[in-house]
């Protein structure tokens, strides 16, 4: 009754669009990645150079450093988002007057365009017009200058990302929590489990698919973040994440060949990471009782 051909037909518009605008550019990048190509070099045009771009990138400290920074950014940002998002969602499962107002307010940052988020945070944290450095200095005697201290720039971008994306995590968690059946929780309570045990043995397993999918989507987006951080700190030391490093290599430096090869490796790392998560989500692990 369900002819696979119909299935393919239903899937085809999606596949066509993605092949055209997703896969075709990928093939082009794959091709360019094995060439030396800088339009402002003495002999412009593509020159095949085999693995030279990759040879260069495994020794490129700036690139490796950017990968490390991105990893730190992603881990800290996503980790905090998950914890905060879970706590907030948990708070939102209770009923109290004004709940929906708080929820709506909490959702607002999600709606701000990343480039505007970067602009707002720049306005908040640049000394001279930003209130944050001013009050930190006055109240806590802290020197806060994201231009002078790379660590502060990194932390600022993490906090900015948390501000922007926690609402998304809260919403998915809330959806996940509201879908958990009541009986197992009550049963566990009756059996004398404490709060933590209920959370660990009952709530968490039910939340796992939502949790992993959320983390999955956040990881992808965090790794390719450009606009927000670009607007905030321009990608100086401390915020030169891989996405921004690629941007600098491809645009101002017009080193298309090398930029493409870095993109390929970044894509490779992202895919491997996400694939492992995907395996975890789809529960294909051995010995797991579905």
């Amino acid at each position, binding site marked *: 009754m369900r002819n696979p051909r119909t299935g393919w037909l239903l899937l085809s518009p999606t596949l066509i669009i993605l092949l055209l*605008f997703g896969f075709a550019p990928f093939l082009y990048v794959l091709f360019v990645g094995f060439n030396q190509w800088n339009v402002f070099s003495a002999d412009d045009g593509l020159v095949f150079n085999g693995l030279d771009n990759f040879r260069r990138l495994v020794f490129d400290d700036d690139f490796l450093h950017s990968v490390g920074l991105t990893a730190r950014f992603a881990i800290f940002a996503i980790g905090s988002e998950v914890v905060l998002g879970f706590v907030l969602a948990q708070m939102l499962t209770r009923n109290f007057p004004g709940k929906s107002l708080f929820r709506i307010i909490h959702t607002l940052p999600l709606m701000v365009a990343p480039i505007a988020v970067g602009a707002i*945070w720049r306005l908040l944290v640049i000394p001279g017009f930003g209130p944050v450095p001013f009050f930190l200095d006055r109240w806590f005697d802290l020197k806060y200058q994201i231009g002078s201290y790379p660590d502060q720039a990194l932390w600022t971008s993490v906090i900015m990302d948390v501000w922007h994306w926690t609402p998304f995590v809260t919403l998915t968690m809330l959806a996940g929590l509201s879908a958990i059946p009541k009986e197992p929780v009550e049963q566990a309570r009756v059996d004398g489990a404490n709060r933590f045990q209920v959370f660990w043995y009952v709530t968490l397993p039910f939340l796992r698919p939502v949790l992993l999918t959320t983390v999955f989507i956040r990881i992808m987006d965090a790794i390719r973040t450009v606009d927000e951080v670009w607007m905030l700190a321009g990608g100086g030391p401390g915020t030169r994440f891989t996405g921004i490093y690629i941007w600098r290599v491809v645009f101002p430096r017009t080193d298309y060949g090398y930029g493409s090869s870095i993109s390929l490796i970044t894509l490779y790392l992202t895919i491997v990471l996400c694939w492992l998560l995907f395996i975890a989500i789809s529960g294909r692990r051995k010995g797991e009782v579905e």
Partner: protein
Amino acid sequence: MTISFRQRAWRLFVTYGFWIFTTIVTLLPIWWMFVVSMRSRVELFGRPNLSLSRFFVENYTNVLTDSTFQRYMTNSVVVSTSNALLVMVLALLATYALSRYKLTGRDNIFFWLITNRMAPPAAFLLPLYIMFTRTFRLGDWTLYDTQIGLILLYCVFNLPFAIWLLKGVIDGIPIELDDAAMIDGAGLWGVLRHVIVPLAAPGLAVTGILSWVFAWNEYLFAANLTSVQARTITTGLAEFVTVTGTNWGELAAMSMLTLIPSAIIVILAQRYIVMGLTFGAVKE
């Protein structure tokens, strides 16, 4: 389980304290953006003052009376709305196919779909630029600087997301319902219309909303693949950063204005968002 009055008061206090704190943290940047948008350029520097000293609406009137801004706004509305609609329809069909048909390697297709969202945008702009200006060309017409170009392109990151989101929702609809409808004589469209769409409505709604927001907020592609005609509002924001001084007031005013439409949509659709974002947590 009786809770004493004191315990209840304490709990209420904690709840509200927590939420008021969260609200302040959430709103502070937005409030600051609003304050900046109400300041003239000369007032911006100096000791930061978080209170709203006066209503300086010139930033808003300057932006709103600018015909380019109006065009950007229209473009943004057209592009993100069309993209959201297109994504909803295509994702529904694709997810239905992935959920109900035994397609060869569908798990792998499912994963491949999402890899489209992972590509670092910078390097992919170049091939896209070439495609937009040269490959898709009919006489003088190209995809470059057209709304349709952006609408299709945004599918690359919105479609995979939508399919991932809908997959759980549609998997959660018992297949017996489809079968029952088919036995009653409904065709494929009948099943989709009368069974799937109503049951997946919250999921579809949230797909549409989030696609809309992502498309509305997108910057890099819009900035590089449009010129004059199809520019969107986010690219307009970048114009305020200039050699002779960033016009922060107008930039903030424009940011406020871009926030309003998405905020309204989210407020109206709050309920569906939570109902739809389950990613297949409802298994039964």
